């Protein structure tokens, strides 16, 4: 979780930002599995939730990469600090 947040703050490359978000999601997934084991009665909810979360993280990565690829085609650069045409 902390590594992900650090990555989001410190990095400027859009793909690295995407990775950082994936790290945050993975932290949550590990939480789910760990908590499911930790409870006295075995819970299947945690594992189910983590499967859902993995699938959704994958779709999110697909959409994000598509947008970033298009940004690279238009600007020849994926430095997010260079994206500053919209401001005010």
């Amino acid at each position, binding site marked *: *979780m902390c590594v992900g947040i650090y990555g*989001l703050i410190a990095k400027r490359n859009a793909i690295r930002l995407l990775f950082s978000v994936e790290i*945050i999601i993975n932290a949550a997934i590990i939480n789910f599995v760990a908590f499911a084991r930790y409870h006295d009665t075995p819970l299947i909810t945690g594992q189910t*939730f983590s499967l859902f979360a993995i699938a959704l993280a994958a*779709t999110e990565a697909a959409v*994000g990469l598509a*947008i970033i690829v298009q940004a690279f085609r238009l600007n020849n650069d994926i430095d*997010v600090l260079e994206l500053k045409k*919209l401001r*005010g």
Partner: protein
Amino acid sequence: MDTPLVVLVVLTSVAVTSPLYEMIFGKKSLKYVQYLTILSLLVSLILLISSTLSLTPQESTVPHLLRNDTLGSFFSFIVILVTLFVSITSFDYMKGNPNERVYYSLLLFTAIGMTMLCFAVDLLVIFVAFELMSLPTFILAGYNKQDKLSNEAAVKFFILGALSSGILLYGISIMFGITGSTNLEVISQSLTSLSPDMLPFVIFSTVSMLAGLGLKLSIVPFHMWIPDTYEGSPTTVSTLLSAATKKAGFASAIRIFAVIFPLFYFDLSLALAIIALVTMTLGNLAALTQKSITRMLAYSSIAQAGYLLIGIVVLPYTNLGLIGLLYHSFNHAILQATAFLAAGLVRLKTSSSSLDSYNGLSKVMPITSFCLALSLLGLAGIPPLNGFWSKLILFSAAVDGGYAWLALAGLVNTAISVAYYLLVIKRMYMDETSIKAIKEPLIFISVLVFATAIIIVTGLLPNVLYDIAEDITISFLANNPV
């Protein structure tokens, strides 16, 4: 009959198949896709209304994933109505764009996600619906692929949106760890018998979920993407983001906070009150200095989120807060949709969204200017229009709930906001123009006129919506005592 499921089936069947029609029908398929989209949205509206009228209040004993209640129906009515407006106006706005069929399909997927989010009472479904609502909007924001601004809007929106869903998921995972369940009813039961040393974790989880949802609600620390995305993306998509996804987020926020509030309502309520204050003040002050109408409307949308948040702040203290929240959600959705769509039409015809292109607009586009002017007056809260009544209820709810200073701040903010709304109207009606007369497309105009008619009618007959909102509030609070 289970309303949410039927509506979801209707919308999904069209959304999944519509990109395929090109293979079967060739060039003609675009018309079919458009009509099917409209038809499916209309059918789901009718289904929602008819089944809500015949809905009998029932005690749910089994933990469910979706709960079929009037609160969900009300919010999904709003979001589907806005999606309907957006898809009809997209006939003109998106004309000539390649992949137009996929556009309508994505609109429907967003509508499905929003509808699910309105009904969801399980954190698992809330998360899935949240993603289903967000992912199509990332693509829609960058829909003009060759437009650098549209792409920039999409990149910014995507990075913050992905972060928000990550943080929401983290918050949910902590909540699951504390209570051992993802169902909101079970969570509320196990939270009442919580040992005090777990309280910091609950607070951490609440803050995470607030941050995740807050990005969609456009409340202040999480508002950075709003102006950029609303300006860069196609204006019809900005309409959807501002008028619809935000409302679905509020529906979910009401359900989550109704569960968490009993635990530490004073602190949470105070924190939310401060956020509401900062949100409306910053939104209104930033809107004053904008040069482009979409940016101005974006900041005004942030400010309106601050007003809506008052409804959640006073949730533990008075019924009036939730009534005002529901009422203002409807009004704000219609007003914001009208304003954004009118701005979209002007952008389509003059290919500019700067405020200078609104000089003397009433002479070249009289109907559009009239609709825009009325919706701006409504957003400002001028008495005969619907925005006034709901703001009145929200502010009096703040006074009732012991947050008189919040109501005072709201009034001051309303006064500030009148300034920039009137500035646009002054430009449209007083200034001179050099543009020649512009033909206003018929379908687009009829949507605007219809929405404006709703604004006037609900403004003149405030009782109708107030009574509906009151019924919903009473039945919601009966199931979820706060």
